[in-house]
């Protein structure tokens, strides 16, 4: 078996064999259901329709890509790097016939798998939950928009994952890495709100780039621009993260 593939399988298995990962996936699935219940109460008792049923999955996606998913991704990235250095299990991989580049790459791929699993669960649960809300419109069109939005959201979330992997290399302690990553994320989000001019060059501003894809007309220029910014961040942070990972001594 190719060692890159072998380690990707191993990293993915390790991640999904942790109780914490499964618990967080369950919570990910529960949040849209809980939101549906709350919104139904609004619709039935007050008569306000805050979110249409056919837009519910997009509403949930916005909530997750801006707030919840970056946190979950950072937690898993920190666990994979600082966590394994902390509990000394990183040696179990480093002492195998696999280069550090392949180890780093397979861990990043695993973060990608985690993102896809999260978004898939979220898409399925939020799409079904949306059916219980008023204001459906065209079901097929809603599902299609939702699918495109969820599928395309993988790209900026991978950028966040690579950034989290890079930050994990700067800390020996996993809690330190997690706290700093959260602070950086909040700071960048605040900066992009108060300084819109800067936001175009910040990775965190592209969490909701799916909006460029599902509008009445696809904004090719904005999509290309966003893609180049995300790709640039991915390349720079991947290279910087690998450099630090490669230099680490046990």
């Amino acid at each position, binding site marked *: 078996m190719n*060692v890159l593939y072998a380690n990707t*399988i191993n990293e993915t298995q*390790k991640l999904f064999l942790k109780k914490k990962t499964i618990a967080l996936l369950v919570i990910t699935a529960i949040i849209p259901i809980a939101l549906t219940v709350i919104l139904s109460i609004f619709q039935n008792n007050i008569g306000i329709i805050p979110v249409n049923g056919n837009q519910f999955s997009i509403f949930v996606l916005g909530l997750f890509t801006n707030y919840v998913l970056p946190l979950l991704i950072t937690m898993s990235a920190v666990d994979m790097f600082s966590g394994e250095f902390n509990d000394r299990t990183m*040696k*179990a991989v*480093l*002492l*195998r*016939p696999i280069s550090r580049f392949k180890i780093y790459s397979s861990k990043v791929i695993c973060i990608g798998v985690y993102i896809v699993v999260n978004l898939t669960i979220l898409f399925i649960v939020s799409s079904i939950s949306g059916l219980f809300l008023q204001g459906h419109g065209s079901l097929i069109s809603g599902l299609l928009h939702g699918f495109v939005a969820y599928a395309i959201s993988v790209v900026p979330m991978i950028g966040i994952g690579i950034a989290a992997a890079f930050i994990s290399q700067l800390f020996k302690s996993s809690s330190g890495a997690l706290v700093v990553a959260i602070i950086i994320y909040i700071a960048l989000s605040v900066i992009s709100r108060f300084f819109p001019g800067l936001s175009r060059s910040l990775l965190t501003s592209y969490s909701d780039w799916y909006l460029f894809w599902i509008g009445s007309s696809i904004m090719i220029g904005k999509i290309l621009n966003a893609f180049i910014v995300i790709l640039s961040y991915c390349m720079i942070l991947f290279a910087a993260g690998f450099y630090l990972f490669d230099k680490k001594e*046990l």
Partner: protein
Amino acid sequence: MENVLEVKGLTKLYKNGRGIRDISFEVSKGEIFGFLGPNGAGKTTTMKIITGLCRADKGEVKILGFNVFEQYEKAMGKVGCIIETSDSYEYISAYKNLELSSRYYHDIEKSRIDEVLKLVGLHKFKNEKVGNFSLGMKQRLGLASAILSNPELVILDEPANGLDIEGMVDIRNIIKELARKEKITFFISSHLIHEMEITCTRVGIINHGELIKGGFVNDLIDSYTSLENYFMSQVRESRGEEN
């Protein structure tokens, strides 16, 4: 005889001035080579550099002819190791741990996992989570993981750590059996001189980061009565004291 491990001029100095200086030695096929020295002598640092966990300031390491610093995957392809402590994942079973390890190698059948678990006496605990294991059981699992791929060289750093007397005897017998039957070469570090005397075929003595001397255990016992006498004489000599 064919050299399985060649170490030339290995040097690594830490900021506090400790480390290793100009370590050179070879380990031939089928040997059980012991790296004997007190705590802090530089045994683990040397082993970490050999296995790629640390970088050397100077020097060269070749395993089965492959340079560890330049051809890591090839060099480590036929090597199994335990460095410092066993490094298993505590939240999964012993069997699953070995299954994860097996994926890095070609042609390791599921039956091999059962075979090594039986060899180290953990087969009946194979489905238990490693987090519930004692230190000795974890060490045995580490040994099982090290020999899983039928390696040509096994590097063990303080393999008797955390083991009771029975555990030490078991591990020693496994090492000797594997060296005799399967011609596996062992490179073992320890500060337990008696253990090294009855396990190893040849030893090298390391102290204060320098490889002082060494030789075949049988020859040293013939000349000095015990490995302990030889060790003390070499340490005194290195300090410039008279025996």
